[in-house]
């Protein structure tokens, strides 16, 4: 067996294992993960539990179709907000977005 094939099979087995474990224990609760990331990195300016003072942008105003705008602001920074590139990673963005959308204004 060629080394590359071994590596591929191992990787495949490993990822199956990870997916399997996640599916068996509990589905990853994106909203909960997002809440934790939010509390650590975002709440100091955007407010506890997404309650905004109006000083920084009220994230509950984001609409369903504004994900690209959200990604762009977090990744590249906007106004007083720094770029979070490298700190808030792509998977964190998914979780953050899930948390924000779960609490968005109707």
């Amino acid at each position, binding site marked *: 067996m060629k080394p590359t094939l071994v590596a591929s099979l191992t990787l495949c087995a490993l990822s199956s294992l990870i997916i399997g474990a996640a599916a068996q224990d509990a589905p990853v609760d994106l909203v909960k993960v997002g809440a934790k990331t939010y509390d650590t990195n975002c709440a100091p*300016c955007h407010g*506890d539990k997404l309650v905004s*003072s*109006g*000083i920084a942008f009220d994230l509950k105003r984001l609409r369903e179709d504004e994900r690209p705008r959200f990604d762009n602001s977090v990744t590249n*920074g906007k106004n007083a907000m*720094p*770029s979070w590139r490298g700190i808030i990673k792509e998977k964190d963005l998914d979780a953050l977005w899930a948390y924000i959308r779960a609490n968005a204004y109707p």
Partner: protein
Amino acid sequence: MRIFRLMTIAGFAASCFTCAASAQTAADLVASQKSTKEILTYGMGYNAQRYSSLTQINRKNVKNLTAAWAYGLSDQLGLEAQPLVHDGVIYITNHNRTAAVDGVTGKELWRHNIDYPSETTRVVCCGIVNRGSALYEGKLIRGTLDNYILALDAKTGKEIWKTKIADIASGYSITGAPLIANGVIITGVAGAEFGIRGFLAGLDPATGKEIWRTYTIPAKGEKGSETWEGDSAATGGGSTWVTGSYDPELNLVFWGISNPAPWNPRGRKGDNLYTCGIMALDPKTGAIKWFSQTDPHDAFDHDGVNALVQADIKVNGEAKKVVMQAHRDGFLYVLERATGKFLAVNPFVEMNWASGWDYKTNRPMWTDVYTKALAGEKVEVWPSLTGGTNWHPMSYSPKENLLFINTFNVGMNYQAGDPEKVTAGQRAQFVDLTPIKPANMGYLKAVDPTTGKAKWEIPFKVANTAGTMNTASGLVFTGQLTGEFIAVNSSNGKILWKFQTQSGIIGQPITWEKDGVQYVTIGSGIGGVYAMRTAAAEVTHVPTGSALWTFKLQGK
């Protein structure tokens, strides 16, 4: 003309030149505590009492106080700084500007802008702000969020030197005012939420060269390192983000050292020296002369950086030279300045994590709230991490022997889960918190220093996060987060005057005089972590934007 006359004239000219060049000398800074015209230091004097002997504005005529001018800072992010005053010129700072303003007219004389890298604010935990500057020998000296100390020409605003003292990538920032003591610039750093190793640095005012650095967290093998679990000291926090005070007689600088990192205590067993305590240092060398720890192994981000106010008072009937601190943890600490001995420790707000102070062991008498928290259980804690009071400075009246403190009345539900590894430069808290907010979230209190008991208190729905200042005419000045600048009768707590400014007040009032007129100056501009987090729902109708206001009596 005879030679000796020539020499006399030359000598006179030379001494005048020296006079002008050496404005705000070390002696001037000592003397300014008693001056009514000059506010040359953070704290309105080295003792940080924020007390003025001015009496032109008094309880009877304060109703006639009126705005003289307002100066806009073109900024939306909060104005916490204490202004300085020299020769009728006011110096004001925020996160990206330093400005000199004519104190009588409000006209700008110069401004200097700071352009820090955008990623800087990733490591600013609690509001994108600056709290003030220092004056020395014609230079206006301040820190920047990205860890430079800047010296500007106080006459022109031109940069004289700039020294970098730390990296934002490692979690450091500077928000506090420098303190100049015995000819040395002393600066602290912020960043205990980002796994820094805290320190104080001493710089030469002439060149900006760093002449000493004293770490608040010992290196491996150093004394105190045994009070940290494993390698937890390396990212142990101990920041120094609020300016200390200086006793020129003892030649001691007092500085509050902040919380250990992370807030979750379960991965850093031990007393965690030298966090959460008061440190006394020699300003020339940075040598630690004493350290008195208020919260060994802090679990609640009770910090320890609050204003250190000096006074000569009686404790148990005995005259003592003391330094006082209304601490985030809820205790009012009174320590002997020369030795750091705890003389009186009493609660000044509701607290439940300790039942008192043990003077034999010099440690808090912890309750099961604390022990359960260490075990990872969910507990209700008073005061919350916001503290019995926060960074905003109290003031002291030597006339009435009272401290005027804007206190918080906020608790928290708290749980520290399994500890996680701290990465320097990234936010590290690792606790679950929910604030408990009663109907009145704060009080302005007049507190007896040795008992902690309030002579009077005024409730506020939204707690004040501004400093207080008081005068010999029996007035206390402070501001509300909803924008009202108020004057209060110091003996009974009655609000005698109020003025609605354009934003929320989180600044530090001062009073000063020029040409026989007394002025009161305060910054207004909402911001800071309390407004943005805890009280967010209560301030949604407070507009942002910063302005410096100055008031005087009508007709003056």
